């Protein structure tokens, strides 16, 4: 009888080991995240670093040849155009993560600085990022960005994890389909699109509800502002240009803050960012750019209810702008255009904030129904979100 058990055990062991070895070998060869440099196959190089997860982005930044990094949330991931002349003529890596908070951006920044000869950092911020919350998002702790990175677990996951195996199959499938990624789908950028027959007003409604719930619990964490100060100092000391962009959410997204009683906190946060640059003596060199507001592109009209065909030029929904608007942001920051956004400093911030309030009053008069819609969403209660 022992022989029967021995045969069973050997078949089980050898089959398991064989299959595990085969999966590991395949994942190492294809290596969509780029974790096994020097061992992976060059044939898959164009299909590498296409995923938007933190693991892949950390491996991408570890390559060490980036001149520009973009730090931000999914708003910067989808909203900034990879083909913009400034980004396209520099080696640019988009290190933005969906739903991120400032501690993650700080860790990604530190890691990128250690491994790359950076010239520019484009920091795309929102006030929610400075609110206390869970320390790490999604797969961030599993990535090289995590200061407590565990190499053994990491390499095992890349060799044997289900998500890396799924990504390997995707890469193989794409290679056989002859897929060639467009710039907006490479180097950490994301090409976002709306499905046909999607009503943008419905989309606004859904996202306003989700974010309204999150904004309700929002507060400013002084520790995050200190991290921002650290980032400013590192850039100053290493002679890296730092441009801070306050992302252009739609006016109705801003209204969630206003109607939710968070406006003074939002104003204080903007003023804090400007003050930190001044305190560190870089207010002339670096910039805090405010692209939010109630006038211009952020006040773009939302298609009416039941309209499934009209597409907004500047917005997917209240939270995410299109690369068209992202292009205008980059024009303002790097090409000297003056049509959109304002570079804040201690001299102009008060007047700017007062003007935003005037714009808000005007917007409320001309868009009373939409303002009432946001109030209704807030009063009905919301769930989840940032």
């Amino acid at each position, binding site marked *: *009888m*022992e022989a*029967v*058990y*021995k*045969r*069973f*055990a050997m*078949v*089980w062991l050898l*089959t*398991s080991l064989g*299959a*595990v070895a085969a*999966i590991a070998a395949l994942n190492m060869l294809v290596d969509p995240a780029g974790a096994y440099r020097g061992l992976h196959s060059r044939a898959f190089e164009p299909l590498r670093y296409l995923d938007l997860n933190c693991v892949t982005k950390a491996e991408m930044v570890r390559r060490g040849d980036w001149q520009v990094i973009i730090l931000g949330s999914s708003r910067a991931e989808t909203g900034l155009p990879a083909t913009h002349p400034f980004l396209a003529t520099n080696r640019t890596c988009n290190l933005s993560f969906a739903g991120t908070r400032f501690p993650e951006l700080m860790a990604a920044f530190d890691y990128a600085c250690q491994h790359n000869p950076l010239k520019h950092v484009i920091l795309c911020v929102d006030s929610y990022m400075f609110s206390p919350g869970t320390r790490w998002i999604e797969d961030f702790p*599993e990535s090289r960005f995590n200061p407590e990175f565990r190499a*053994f*677990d990491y390499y*095992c*996951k890349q060799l*044997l*994890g*289900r*998500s*890396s*195996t799924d990504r390997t199959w995707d890469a193989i499938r794409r290679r056989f389909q002859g897929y060639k990624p467009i710039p907006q789908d490479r180097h950490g950028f994301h090409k976002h699109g709306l499905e046909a027959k999607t009503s943008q007003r419905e989309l606004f409604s859904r996202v306003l*509800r*989700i974010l309204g*719930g999150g904004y309700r*619990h929002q507060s400013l964490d002084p520790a995050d502002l200190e991290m921002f100060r650290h980032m400013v100092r590192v850039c100053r000391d290493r002679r890296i240009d730092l441009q801070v962009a306050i992302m252009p959410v739609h006016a109705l997204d801003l209204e969630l803050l206003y109607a939710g009683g968070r406006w003074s906190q939002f104003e204080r946060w903007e003023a804090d960012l400007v003050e930190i640059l001044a305190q560190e003596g870089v207010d002339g060199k670096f910039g805090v750019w405010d692209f939010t507001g109630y006038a211009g592109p952020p006040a773009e009209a939302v298609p009416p209810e039941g309209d499934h065909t009209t597409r907004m030029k500047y917005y997917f929904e209240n939270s995410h702008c299109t690369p068209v608007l992202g292009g205008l942001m980059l024009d303002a920051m790097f090409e000297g255009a003056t049509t959109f956004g304002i570079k804040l400093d201690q001299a102009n911030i008060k007047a700017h904030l007062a003007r935003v309030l005037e714009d808000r009053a005007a917007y409320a008069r001309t868009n009373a129904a939409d303002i009432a819609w946001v109030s209704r969403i807030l009063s009905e*209660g*919301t*769930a*989840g*979100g940032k």
Partner: protein
Amino acid sequence: MLFNSYLFILVFLPVTLGVYLFIIRQGWRKQSFDWLVLASIFFYGWWKWSNVPLLIGSLLFNYTIGTWLGKIAPGRRAKALLVVGLTGNLLFLGYFKYANFFLDNVNSLFGLGWTVTHLVLPLGISFITFQKIAYLVDSSQGLTRGYGFRDFCLFVSFFPQLIAGPIVHHSELMPQFRRKDSGPSWEDFSVGAVLFVIGLGKKVLVADPFAAFANPVFNAAHSGTVPGFAVAWIGTLAYTMQIYFDFSGYTDMAIGLGRMFGIRLPLNFNSPYKATNIADFWRRWHMTLSRFLRDYLYIPLGGNRKGPARRYVNLMITMLLGGLWHGAGWTFVAWGALHGFYLSVFHGWHEWRGRTGRAAPTPYVAGLWAGRVVTFLAVIAGWVFFRAENFSDATKVLGGMVGVHGFSFRADGLNFSLTQATKMVGLFLVVVWVFPNSHEVLASHTPALEYAQNPPRVNLAPTPRWLGRLLVWRPTLLGALILAALMIAGILNVSRPSDFIYWQF
């Protein structure tokens, strides 16, 4: 180190087992157990090295007291020594597990701000303490004479059961360490591997996905959202399944690991949701804890020997402390109290039926199913307190379940599909109610200690006989390939290892 981690599966287990077998092959049986002690301490220390001195200190303390107790005659001195030993263990547990809970309550009562900082609960402390208490009590009765220090260390620290049980009794494990035969056989390895892989599958393929349904509901309740009817039910049922497969998976892995090393651990989990009454549930859920509470708390308190009133008081005390053992929080106490109440009601009802001659000699199938469903409902109501962060959260979820907040069937704001969750709950309800469990499937291969000592009569009800026969495990080629497939699926899914629920106790 988690059982469901790459480090454990790919490095620790193969190295520990390989060296163990190598040492046995050299004919060094005693040294093979020394190796297991070292490996177990390494396993424990991997989580937090600073806790290793605590473990070793507590081993030395308890072995010294136990040996001393075994040498002196029963009397006042023995009693005093036993009190010293028990107090030492309870203070150890109390300090690490309950100090902050105690201070929080004192603070809220008297408006103070006392805190004990940097207090990290040593892993497995609740389980280890109970094993040592049982050892000391039995030592005072002369039942532990002749045990060596190595045997004692291995009894407490044997890594498969170190962190979350089964809570083994010295009489179950120590004799196995004195075996002089050649060590684990191929049957031991095969049966152990089957149990380990089934347990791994339960944890990573079933329990963890259920957590993805349960956590959002309880987290939303904690952040102030009131769950609707369907969401509250699905969240609670998902947690009911999560804790079942999590604990059952852990137990299978622990027993399987023990068996791979040729050591049989006692059963700890026996299809508890098949229980037809609440007493039956406690004979099936965390069986070794129930046994400890019965033998070292309920019976010493007087059990049912001092009249019905004392019996109910003893039951309540036992279950309240059982609840508190699970965690330093009032929700755990409430969970224990609820089960104490259930058990009191059941025993009262059972006694009344017996007294009035209403107990049917052979229970009807419909009656058994009715009992099963009622017991299940009572248990899941208890799980709400067990899972919730506080009473407010528990009230919200329970309120949602009884329709206090309306009868909504939508899951707005939650990142899962209610339909998918319902299907999964439905499927696994059938599995837990109808399918045989892992040790029943392996019954003819004596998977656990009970099978080797007094083989229990395997009663598969309510599993249909044909299904029971179909699922009997045999060491065939097909069986090995199926097991390999399950192993690979398990390994692919351990990429995000999550703690076992019972590890936090």
